[in-house]
């Protein structure tokens, strides 16, 4: 078990390192470097000044050398400053992480709460009209563009009905709740389809097993069968598959954050990329990737921990 965890952790670290290298090289390819931005802000700077500034910031060195320098600093916990916020990138992201969590976590839970009962229901009546209706709804859920769903719900609830705010963070606890209702619902609706399909497939697999037939023959009720036999066994593949959806969760959260003006990780990343705030963009992407990889690893480990049949080397 320990060996497996170390191996997986090492793999995740390698991926993270590769992502940081790739991002660093890409950021070097983005329009304008920090000195260009300084020049555009101050017309009195001469080209000699610019050259001196480039030297001072180390921008004249080859990009790979700069990456190693950044990496050395990063390993000591020094991730640099955000140009736009004039604060350490980590401090900016520290606030953003909580906003993202407040959107993503309830949405994930709501999506599972929607998906699991309907997935079980569909699996229990394979081929029936209920199954087909549920399947079609799942398909529509995973086909709708999240941002369009958001726009439509903003129009309906904020413009037409005026029940909910169109966006923003909200003041106080109840204000925050009010501002979270739409983004969380949009995100949950767009995630539910995938989870529903997973649940249905996993439950259908279990329903074909001999022990289910035995339980049925012994007269276990339909609900009892689902709750006692199918759900616990179907939960295992569901956990692994859900772990793989964390990347999609972050992608969806990003869209929702932009549309509903939530100052979370996705919004910060998007603004940083558009505003040439390289340090912040780099650290935001790294953090998002790291969170996804760790979540993935946790899903795999909990799978192994929950299933006594699996012994990890």
């Amino acid at each position, binding site marked *: 078990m320990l060996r497996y965890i170390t191996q997986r952790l090492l793999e995740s670290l390698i991926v993270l390192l590769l992502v940081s290298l790739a991002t660093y090289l890409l950021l070097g390819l983005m329009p304008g470097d920090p000195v260009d931005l300084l020049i555009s802000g101050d017309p009195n700077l001469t080209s000699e000044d610019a050259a001196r500034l480039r030297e001072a910031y180390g921008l004249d060195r080859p990009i790979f050398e700069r990456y190693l320098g950044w990496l050395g600093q990063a390993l000591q916990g020094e991730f640099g400053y955000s140009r736009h916020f004039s604060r350490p990138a980590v401090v900016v992201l520290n606030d953003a992480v909580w906003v993202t969590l407040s959107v993503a976590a309830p949405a994930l839970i709501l999506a599972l709460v929607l998906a699991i009962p309907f997935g079980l229901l569909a699996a229990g009546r394979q081929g*029936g009209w209920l199954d087909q209706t549920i399947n079609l709804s799942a398909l*529509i859920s995973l*086909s709708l563009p999240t941002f369009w769903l958001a*726009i439509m719900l903003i129009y309906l609830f904020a413009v037409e009905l005026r029940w909910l705010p169109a966006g923003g963070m909200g003041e106080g606890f109840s204000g925050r709740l009010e501002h979270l209702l739409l983004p969380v619902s949009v995100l949950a609706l767009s995630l539910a389809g995938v989870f529903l399909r997973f649940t249905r497939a996993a439950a259908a697999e279990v329903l074909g097993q001999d022990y289910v037939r035995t339980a049925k023959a012994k007269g276990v009720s339909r609900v009892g069968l689902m709750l006692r036999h199918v759900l616990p066994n179907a939960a295992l593949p569901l956990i692994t598959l859900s772990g793989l959806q964390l990347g999609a969760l972050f992608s969806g959260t990003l869209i929702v954050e932009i549309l509903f003006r939530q100052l979370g990780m*996705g919004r910060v*990343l998007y603004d940083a990329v558009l505003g040439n705030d390289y340090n912040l963009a780099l650290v935001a992407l790294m953090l998002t990737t790291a969170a996804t990889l760790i979540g993935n690893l946790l899903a795999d480990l909990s799978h192994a921990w929950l299933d006594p049949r699996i012994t990890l080397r």
Partner: protein
Amino acid sequence: MPGSTPASPSARAGKPKASGPSASGPSASGRPASGRLRALLRQPLAFLALVFLALLAVASVSASWLASLEGIDPSAVDLFNAMAPPSPEHWLGTDELGRDLFYRLLLGGQVSLAVGLAAALGAAAIGTLIGLTAGEHGGWIDSLLMRSTDAMIALPLLPILIVLSAVDLTKLGFSTEVAGSEQAAMIRLIILVALVGWTTTARLVRAAARETLAQDYVLAARAMGASSLRILLRHVLPNIVAPLVVATTLSVGQVILFESVLSFLGLGLDPGTASWGRMLAGAQDILWDAPALALYPGLAIAATVIACNLAGDGLAAAFDPRRSRNR
């Protein structure tokens, strides 16, 4: 309700005779073309989806011609007639610059479908190459490639695509004119989406390739001195066509979603290009005044992606005799 459940499968079970000929079918996927078509026809939704996609493709490609038949120029700006409601002349009304919304949608469909198809084919090519290499070589190459695929699947794609889209092409050595052109934006988008979209295909192709390579007839071919390349082309490739078609159909839908969201965020296509995502980006600012402008492009995206998914699922069932027999 319990009564209806057994009734509907048996009603459908009465019809299919297609599984009979499929048993004797020599084709790679175990079912002759006519049987596959019949299997597809038995799924009305999937069939409708294919018809819809075909009609959309034809209408989009001939959009300019259709518009000229009606005497409408879909790119003509008419500010006196902006945001007009639907009328016999303009079926869906006009947009914020007074252009005909219906034909703008069809022109947008041209772009969205072209980008979707091109990127999906690119992703299929990358995925096939990686899947075949992994399946053929096995060993450490296989585990390296499959680990990379796993990592790729887990990554948060949209944040990565946003960073990738912001790359300044002039710094890659392209001239300012080339980098700033509409075509460059489109090609960049196609390449980007293809670069992240190959994972499902790679997995499917690898699985199919391994299955085929373990067959006795492949062993026989090897014993008779066939080269690896010949075995891949003659024996493995025909066997992966079915999963490949399914995966590509499904990924066209995914790609259209990626295209629309990136264009919506202002990072995909050139602002001058009429694509569904760009139209939605424009409509978002005037949502209060003209909600219809946001409604139709979104419906177009949703309908196309749903159709691609339905068609993909239908093709999967039609290609796989095991799945249709269970039903």
